[in-house]
């Protein structure tokens, strides 16, 4: 029977029992970070259990690490304790770990693909909801909670309910000013925060095929924002070429053998999806979120919506509450809204291509007076590559802060936070109340819109900078 990509990976990993509904799945790669793991390791110790496959487990410090220069000590004792706990736990259980300052350290969803350890056809889990990022490589990757982290550590398996499948088809060619981030903001806006619940999304269509692998990561990254636990893209030559030469993949003939197997990780032509959603890429534009959930999306050319636009009273309440929190007036053009902070970073948009795109906009201009702009590379490898290309100089000369890699202001667990009332254009994935710091106001944008906004001091497109 014709199968979708998801069904192929699912079938491959069912350990025993019926291949549908609820099954015990084998996990090929378990990524670990400091925030969702300490209680899991504790649970193992309490029950006298060990890590079944330390060699399929990889840990990095990302959520909590300061992005100040490495010579600066970590002043927050609780953060320091958590980072130390990760090191100690990994040492005790024999897990490879990349602590702060390590050449392979970075945001967990940036380093898996860049090290080539996230590969097509795999099941990948992490105690982090943005694990779907790795689905860009044609793998089934999803976020889990701490109890499940403990479960995977102990057994290398997870009991799972089979999800329904959704095809999100993006036909046509996107205009040149539309990035992968804009595509996914449009999709989340269309599906709403719950539209993907219970589904695994496969992104398909010409506009997806035309994305680079890094663009596909941005896309898959935000699947959870539409409620879907996983999002994936079928393997093609872009996938294979992305992986070639990375540390985690074999070399020479062995690579070609692996690649031949990887090429089978596509949905069969006549595979059935439970749901199909179609968008036309040529209709898309650059987007900005205006509210307090990622589905509250509006065109950069547009205006702040009004509660009166909506028919249901429930929705009117939600809009009013969001407008109040965001301190916005309906009808205000987005381009008239000034920002205090610009954050370029996070597992959505902190890879080398993102930094190149943002730097190209910033080059030769200056960050607007009074705006604080940060660039936080997703990993040390990204940072090193950017410095090799001189992107750090471009940013610094334009007045951006060039920082050490980590999650940083995406969730404000380290000192990089918004102060109450500050408004931020952010390339991250969540604009929830308080996400970037208590009382902070977050607008999600693409890297090029973020860079242009930093220069103009208000929401802006790159064309306005060069004009």
């Amino acid at each position, binding site marked *: 029977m014709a199968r979708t990509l998801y069904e192929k990976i699912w079938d*491959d990993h069912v*350990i*025993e029992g019926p291949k549908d509904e*609820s099954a*015990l799945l*084998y996990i*090929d790669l378990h990524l670990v970070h400091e*925030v*969702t793991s*300490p*209680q899991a390791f*504790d649970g193992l110790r309490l029950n006298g259990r060990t890590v*079944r496959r330390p060699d*399929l*487990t990889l840990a990095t410090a990302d*959520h909590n690490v300061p992005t100040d220069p490495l010579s600066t000590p970590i002043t927050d004792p609780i*953060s320091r*304790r*958590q980072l130390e*706990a990760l090191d100690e736990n990994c040492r005790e259980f024999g897990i*490879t770990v990349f602590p702060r300052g390590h050449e*392979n350290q970075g945001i967990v969803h940036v380093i898996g693909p860049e*090290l080539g*350890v996230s*590969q097509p*056809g795999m099941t990948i889990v992490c105690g*982090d*909801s943005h694990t779907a990022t790795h689905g860009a490589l044609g793998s089934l990757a999803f*976020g*889990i*909670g*701490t*109890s*499940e982290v*403990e*479960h995977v550590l*102990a*057994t290398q*398996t997870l*009991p799972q309910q089979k999800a329904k499948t959704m095809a999100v088809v993006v036909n046509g060619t996107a205009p040149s000013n539309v990035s992968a981030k804009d595509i996914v903001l449009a999709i989340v806006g269309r599906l709403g*925060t*719950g539209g993907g*619940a*219970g589904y695994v999304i496969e992104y398909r269509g010409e506009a997806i095929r035309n994305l680079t692998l890094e663009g596909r990561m941005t896309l898959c990254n935000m699947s959870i924002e539409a*409620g879907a*636990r996983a999002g994936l893209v079928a393997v093609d030559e872009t996938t294979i070429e992305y992986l070639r030469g990375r*540390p*985690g993949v074999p070399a020479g003939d062995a690579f070609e053998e692996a690649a031949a197997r990887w090429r089978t990780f596509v949905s069969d032509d006549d595979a059935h999806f439970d749901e199909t959603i179609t968008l036309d890429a040529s209709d898309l534009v650059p987007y900005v979120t205006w509210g307090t959930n990622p589905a509250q999306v509006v065109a950069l050319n547009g205006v702040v919506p009004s509660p009166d636009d909506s028919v249901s009273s*429930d929705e009117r309440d*939600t809009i009013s*509450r969001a407008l109040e929190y965001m301190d916005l007036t309906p009808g205000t053009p987005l381009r008239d809204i000034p920002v205090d902070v610009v954050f370029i970073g996070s597992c959505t948009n902190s890879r080398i291509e993102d930094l190149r795109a943002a730097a190209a906009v910033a080059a030769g201009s200056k960050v607007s007076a009074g705006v604080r702009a940060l660039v936080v590379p997703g990993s040390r490898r990204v940072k090193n590559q950017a410095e090799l290309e001189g992107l750090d100089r471009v940013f610094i000369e334009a007045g951006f802060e060039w920082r050490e890699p980590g999650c940083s202001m995406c*969730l*404000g*667990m380290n000192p990089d936070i918004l102060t109450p009332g500050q408004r931020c254009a952010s390339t991250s994935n*969540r604009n*929830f*109340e*308080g*996400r970037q710091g*208590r009382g902070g106001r977050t607008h999600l944008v693409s890297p090029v819109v973020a860079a242009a906004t930093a220069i103009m001091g208000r929401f802006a497109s790159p064309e306005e900078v060069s004009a």
Partner: protein
Amino acid sequence: MKPVRVLEGRAVPLERSDVDTDQIIPSEWLKRVERTGFGRGLFSEWRDDTTFVLNQPEYAGATILVAGARFGTGSSREHAVWALMDYGFGAVVASSFGDIFRNNSSKQGLVTVQLSASDLDELSTLVKDNPALLVVVDVEKLVVEVPEAGWRRAFVLDSMTQERLLEGWDDIGISLRRVDAISQYEATSHAPSLEHVFDAEGHAHSL
């Protein structure tokens, strides 16, 4: 975890939809390495507001949270579940839940009761009008009821989750009973080992 059969208690109406896990427990609380003490952080950004429903004396000690649509979306942090339970909640009633939140709840013994939007509204109104009402969540019969008001609705849990709640089973123990099948699977697995990728210090072996 402890078995959960029947929960009886007063309920508090949150009357908000899209309550994500960042709101349930803000990230500043995630730095702890312990599993306890998160109750103080529950909804902490809202609790400064004296009008916030959890601050109302008539709802003190409530053990059932009546939320809105899409409760617990967003971040995978299980700390959200720990915070709700540490605060004293044993069940959350909503018209829909974030997937991961629901999973996490089932591992900890927090009962998630999904009702239709209109049933949820009815329950919310009942406990708003009379905070003293006793609400019963019965995991065995899969019903939620307000006996005094003669209000009773069925809800659904998948049989695995229901059984685990009723028996207080530890998932890991269940899976470890299948260790032979896991070993057999591993013998045929394609998963590449990281042993050959990184040395003891985590440096990548050069190709």
